[in-house]
């Protein structure tokens, strides 16, 4: 189907599909959540709050793990970028 369209739409398509790389979206989610939770972990670490989660600063640790996972997805997306023609070959 795409071969009937003008050539320049392919460029638009690949640009939007790069933006639409799911790995980027997952990375954004984890990085934003990770940073917010890490900050929350540093700000609110009174003994009463720590006791709630059994003495672990769960906000801080979850935040750090999420930042690492987010960074992992960024690295994956950068190292192995999407190849837009894959979808067209299938058709």
């Amino acid at each position, binding site marked *: *189907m*795409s071969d009937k369209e003008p050539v320049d739409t392919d460029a638009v*398509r690949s640009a*939007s*599909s790069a*933006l*639409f790389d*799911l790995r980027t*979206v*997952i990375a*954004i*989610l*984890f990085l*934003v*959540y990770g940073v*917010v*939770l890490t900050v*929350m*972990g540093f700000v*609110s670490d009174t003994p009463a*709050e720590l006791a*709630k*989660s*059994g*003495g*672990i600063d*769960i*906000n801080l*640790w*979850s935040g750090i793990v*999420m930042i690492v996972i987010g960074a992992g997805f960024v690295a994956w997306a950068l190292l192995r970028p999407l190849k837009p023609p*894959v*979808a067209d070959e*299938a*058709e």
Partner: protein
Amino acid sequence: MLLAQADLRLNTTAIDYVLVAFYFVLVLGIGVVARRSVSSSLDFLLSGRSLPAWVTGLAFVSANLGALELVGMSANGAQYGIPVVHYYWIGAVPAMVFLGIVMMPFYYGSKARSVPEFLRMRFNATTQRVNGVTFAIASVLIAGVNLFTLGLVLEALLGWSLYVAIPIAALVVLAYTVLGGLSAAIYNEVLQFFVILALLVPLTVAGLARVGGWDGLKQKITAAAAGNTDQLHSWPGTSLTEIANPTLSVIGIVFGLGFVLSFGYWTTNFAEVQRALSARNMSAARRTPIIAAFPKALIPLVVVVPGMVAGVLVPQITALKAGGDSGGITYNNSLTLLMNEVLPNGLLGVALAGLLASFMAGMAANVSSLNTVFTYDLWQDWIRPGRSDRYYLQVGRLVTVVGCILAIGAAFLAGSYSNITDYIQALFSFFNAPLFAIFILGLFWKRMTGTAGWTGLVAGTIAAVVIDVLTRVNVLELSSQAGSFVGAAAAFVVGVAVAVAVSMVTQPKPDSELVGLTWSLTPKESREHTTTGEDAGWFRSPVTLGVIVIVLIIVLYFVV
């Protein structure tokens, strides 16, 4: 009841709502961006068959990580303990591997766009229509159940009225599926998978820390049960099956849960199979359910365990387990009560986003599979054939809107049933068990005829409905859980018996029309797939992956 409502409200602050809002922005953003890549009905309804296996695999798990799964299984964990892992290890993983290795070559290889379309190829148009209509009805009913439970959570946690919460939830699901079609639904399912893990993993870690680790949890459960350790061992699971005899209980789990119910659900439910059909090639399609089996095998660690923690940590649930007054609280509240008990603000917002995501996952899966079946199987192949692709794309979008509106109605219908789990298990025994029967027979017995296909389906469904009615009016003295198992077994047996009898007196299809649709007439090469380029390597072999995951569940069974 008023008191119970107040107990259930989460201690949320502004930062929690910011995190929830951010998630919804991403979800709707995916819908908007996905719209740009939708240019044909195949794009909209099957994602143009272009998705990589890790995406379809995670969507496959996520489509099943809906409301009932998360809330229901943590509730079961609180009530029954470790035996609940059977639902995952014997009740899901083997069927998922079977789907990938044995059945996917036929599904994907036939180029069928849906389960009903496959039935038309193997049997005839009547079978396609019977299955298409029943599937459409079942999808709307089950979408309604998901929507209703989502509304219940919003009502309890945020204080919204059901009449506000249900339409708003439907509107969000509608917005992203109508914009981006299946791609948006699948991409969001993958995102949901990660948010749900971001809810479950910290909840499990913090919960275990509060009860003194795994050993502390075991001690507390043993103490609460007055020295009885049944809740800490997976076998024989007598409390779960309600079968007193241990041997019969094991047989019930292996054959009832492990064979009839689980194979029926995982191998023929189009909401699941559709995720694999949208993979980019045969190799990715076969790997989809097997990749999904890995997280499926591990999810109980973060669903059943927090349930068990709630059973000893949350005062209301502890009281409920001890048989005392719990003030209107049920096991279904375990997950949210534990969230409130152990998670600080910040993570609570992430958890709330994860919970909402899980409810929407189930409904989006129902709606997106409904519009594929309605558009292709009922509208294009039956009612209005021969129009342009653009026309069917419009129909697909319209069906999404209508489906969401009907689901709102079905949500209030589901609310009128006292026990939602019973309702949904009865639906599965009506629709999935007979379908699995004729599928397996049709796959391995080429003599089975087209007429036998739809008569077997109808007879199996009638058998399941009869058992359900007999159980309800107490002619059969069975618990509701055992009732749906017997119903599923009856549907399977009657379906096969009628199909065999009808095949004997009707004309089979010529062999030439069955190539690629039955086992014996499909050359081995065409059941295989390419193993070069992006599909090379032992770690991309469906059989190798399947063996690894089966070994994994055997090892897990040795642990507990």
